[in-house]
């Protein structure tokens, strides 16, 4: 018989290979989560550290974007979700069960640009809104020149780059523009995906960073870490108090300090008051269910307690601002009811 033995041997081996993990599965607990790309670095650091302390607990997080995170959380295909923009009332209503927003850390969205010969720029809300609305078309526009008298701004056109996918970064950025520009609020508004009047779309923070890097005269918005790790220039932004502030852990913490935190933690901290506050800052949230099946709730709660204590100390090294003490206490109290 031609090759019969070979085939059956191969099939038997394949079957064994596939079955093997069934026998080896021990008393481990695996939690699966998905969502925002922005906190991915700190989350994977946390889950890795936590696995070192509790080798029997594995938390697997996939960064598919805030929109995807909310979708999978709603479909209950994951144990928890993650987002940079809070769920809307409508989105919460769609979830079977009670979703809880758990703020974890804070971050900043920065305007990043590629203008030859220009390394530092200052923006304000009106300029950013004007650029992204398409009314400010050239780098040597008087408005930009007015704030940056020293910069050698060329008379070249501005190429706007924005996100093409549903994104918490977009939510934070448009939330800020809506807060500072009535025209933006009226014509475009706030959302994870909006109808951009002008510009090119890039997928993910990386896509926007890549487009800005390749395009002379481009401006985009990315999370701070993406601008830093790609060596992109990013501008300081004038805050509510009229001071130009460059994004940093301290400037984000300052923005959070002045915020009034509601009981469900769904809060926007864009355009915060205070001299040192960075105006395009945001919390990022984990989404968990109030009631979980089996051990999931207990394991999650234990992790969240660790995250609020030891986990927070890991944040600044990775460019994230830890939760303010008052928020930390509120979260600790809130997670007690998670089952």
């Amino acid at each position: 018989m031609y090759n019969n033995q070979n085939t059956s041997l191969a099939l038997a081996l394949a079957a064994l290979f596939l079955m093997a993990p069934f026998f080896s599965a021990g008393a481990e607990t695996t939690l699966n989560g998905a969502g925002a790309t922005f906190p991915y670095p700190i989350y994977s650091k946390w889950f890795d550290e936590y696995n070192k302390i509790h080798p029997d607990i594995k938390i697997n997080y996939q960064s598919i974007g805030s929109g995807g995170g909310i979708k999978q959380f709603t479909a209950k295909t994951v144990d928890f979700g993650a987002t940079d923009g809070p769920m809307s009332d409508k989105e919460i209503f769609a979830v079977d069960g009670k979703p809880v927003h758990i703020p974890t850390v804070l971050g900043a969205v920065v305007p990043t640009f590629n203008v030859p010969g220009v390394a530092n720029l200052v923006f304000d809300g009106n300029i950013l809104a004007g650029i992204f609305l398409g009314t400010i078309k050239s780098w040597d526009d008087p408005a930009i020149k007015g704030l940056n008298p020293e910069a050698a701004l060329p008379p070249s056109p501005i190429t706007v780059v924005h996100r093409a996918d549903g994104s918490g970064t977009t939510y934070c950025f448009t939330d800020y523009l809506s807060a500072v520009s009535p025209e933006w609020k009226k014509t475009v508004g706030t959302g994870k995906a909006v109808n951009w009047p002008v510009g090119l779309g890039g997928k993910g923070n990386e896509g926007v960073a890549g487009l800005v890097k390749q395009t002379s005269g481009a401006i985009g918005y990315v999370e701070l870490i993406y601008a830093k790790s790609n060596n992109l220039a990013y501008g300081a932004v004038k805050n509510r108090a009229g001071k130009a502030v460059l994004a940093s852990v301290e400037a984000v913490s300052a923005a959070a300090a002045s915020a009034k935190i509601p009981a469900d933690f769904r809060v926007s901290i864009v355009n915060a008051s205070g001299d040192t506050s960075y105006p395009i800052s945001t919390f990022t949230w984990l989404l968990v269910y109030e009631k979980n099946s089996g051990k999931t709730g207990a394991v999650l709660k234990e992790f969240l307690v660790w995250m609020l204590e030891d986990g927070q100390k890991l944040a600044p090294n990775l460019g994230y601002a830890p939760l303010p003490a008052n928020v930390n206490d509120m979260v600790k109290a809130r997670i007690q009811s998670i089952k």
Partner: protein
Amino acid sequence: MSAGFRRRQRINTFMFFLTGVFTFIALSTLFFILGYIAYHGISSLSWDFVTKLPKPVGETGGGIANAIVGSLKIVGLASLIGIPVGVLGAVYLAEFGGNRIGFLIRYAADVINGVPSIVIGIFAYALVVLPMKQFSALSGGVALSIIMIPLVIRTTEEFLRLVPGSIREAALALGLPQWKVILRVVLPTAARGILTGAILSVSRIAGETAPLLFTAFGNRYWDDGLLHPIAALPLTIFTYAISPYDDWHKQAWAAALILILIVLIGNILARLLMKQPSPQSH
């Protein structure tokens, strides 16, 4: 010599030259891709890279062992579903499918073949992930097997049709029942072609990313069994390539190199197996 002849001769030389150039372009693309990936990937290859788990995001080092095993598992699972279904389907088409149903099946297979793989991923998501409320290796295997089945059906059928009718008739004339003719005469004769088709389909699905995004989902740890999210090489390459970290970009190249090597080695092994002189003992 007439001017017309010289003109035809010139055109002949020119066209001959063109075919050579285009053959060179087609071949050099292959070698360019292989070379480019090897050039970028080889510096990050190490023993640790193929035996260790990934490090947390942004930290250098770590490996992709779980993705290698995960890919083998998903592709193995897809083959276990896809190859038997495909081969048996092809037997039906080649031996009994000269009718309207056969036409419909062939047509359906071609249509599935043309469906973008992301759509098949969504289908598997709705079929397996949503009811089970769990991303899993199983759903990834199902998604890939759906891509595999039409490929296996169509290639296997082609090779079964190449088996001369006279051989079938000779076997029937010796008094063999039809099932024995198919099992002992037709299939072994076409075995080489069937295996080639199977290898091609395995190579094709090994590199699929889109159908795995919302089925296998990815996992940073070792997975247990078939009912949990699982890592896979294409997913790892995708995630690492769009990350903002240089080290991950390098690892993505190395992972791509490993994926290509695995497909290549599988290909060569299977061909060597087929080259073995077949024992004609029966």
